[in-house]
């Protein structure tokens, strides 16, 4: 017994934790941009943390339930409304067949995650239900959710606890002026010292083009490159390199003007230099940035990056302990 999609919102996609293992073939890992929020939503409804849910960008869909189940909304502050009544997010909410879920206007963040007990049970592609529209993989026919779609649910194991709630202190949302920690490299040597220092001092703004593939920023001073003879295979622009692999989180700056952070639907390689890489602990935050949000890049070293990763693992453990 499926969930009927009445309206689909904006770029609403089915996402789980992605399909690692194919990036070397050009197929990105994909999956929820805010992995912590998806895990939390699943835990609230008693699912495995990696079950498939809906990733909603800026606005929510309108859904009709045709079976009793439990749902939870996490991530950006997109207030759920059940038959018109505004309810709490980050909370397990039981619904009856025939009830309708819609959403109020987004109050903060950029992406909300909806998990349903049993999880969305669309077919697996390369081991994942995550929608990758460019490669037509996952989701429903490899595309975003559309009005008229039906979302099949898997069998719930009855572990959903009505009213289970994750308090604000256990959540994570970006500050009004966001800081993203960046480990410099691999092509740091391509820009002048003064230019590198300025990159970290200035405040950038999220550009409206930001999406699952890459988050673009604007408003800072263009980078100054060190003179060179282009190496074999590199284009003539000073930002070009001989084609190389692009890590998730890497910050490329085509022509030195607008930094782009590659995210979960990243391209796996190309010919632009990368000034550094956003640390794994801060990747979830990027998925919660609206256009025009002021953002600073903060230079960190590997020890800080690894310690921040451990802190995020502890934060996830704290949610698991709270809901256990």
């Amino acid at each position, binding site marked *: 017994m499926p969930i009927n999609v009445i309206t689909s919102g904006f770029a609403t996609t089915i996402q789980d934790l992605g399909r690692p293992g194919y990036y070397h073939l050009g197929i990105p890992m994909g999956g929820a941009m805010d992995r912590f929020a998806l895990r939390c939503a699943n835990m609230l409804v008693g699912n495995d943390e990696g079950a498939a849910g809906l990733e909603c960008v800026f606005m929510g869909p309108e859904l009709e339930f045709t079976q009793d189940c439990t749902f939870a909304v996490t991530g950006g502050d997109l207030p759920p409304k059940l038959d018109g009544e505004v309810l709490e997010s980050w909370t397990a909410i039981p619904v009856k067949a025939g009830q309708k879920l819609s959403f109020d206007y987004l*109050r903060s963040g950029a992406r909300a995650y909806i998990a349903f007990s049993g999880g969305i049970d669309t077919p697996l592609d390369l081991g994942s239900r995550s929608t990758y529209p460019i490669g037509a993989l996952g989701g429903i026919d490899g595309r975003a959710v559309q009005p008229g779609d039906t979302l099949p649910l898997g069998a719930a194991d009855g572990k959903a606890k009505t009213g289970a709630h994750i308090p604000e202190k256990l959540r994570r949302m970006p500050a009004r002026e966001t800081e993203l920690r960046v480990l410099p490299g691999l092509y740091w040597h391509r820009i002048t010292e003064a230019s590198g220092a300025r990159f970290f001092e200035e405040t950038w703004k999220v550009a409206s083009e930001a999406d699952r593939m890459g988050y673009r920023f604007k408003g800072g001073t263009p980078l100054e490159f060190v003179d060179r003879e282009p190496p074999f295979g590199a284009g003539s622009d000073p930002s070009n390199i001989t084609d190389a692999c692009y890590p998730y989180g890497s910050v490329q700056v085509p022509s030195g003007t607008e930094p782009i952070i590659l995210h979960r639907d990243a391209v796996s390689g190309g010919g632009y230099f990368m000034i550094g890489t956003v640390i794994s602990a801060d990747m979830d935050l990027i998925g919660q940035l609206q256009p025009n949000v002021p953002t600073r890049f903060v230079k960190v070293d590997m020890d800080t990056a690894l310690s921040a990763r451990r802190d995020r693992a502890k934060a996830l453990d704290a949610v698991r302990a709270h809901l256990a």
Partner: protein
Amino acid sequence: MAKSEIRSPLPGVFYRRPSPEEKNYKEVGDDVKAGDVVGLVEVMKTYTEVKSDADGKLTAFLAEDEDAIMPGQVIAELES
């Protein structure tokens, strides 16, 4: 006379006309029917129409052409 508001559910850049060569969708004083388009919002390389969900007379635009807007921001006001 009841007042109502037209809001954009999306953040992004607001435009009052379908393309730079064309006229504005609506002007202050125009009659608006439910479902009429009053502007566009550009975000994530997509243009999404902002529609009125009520009938009435357009009394004011609260967002200018090319303004950066927030989700839920009031774009225009109607009297009906």
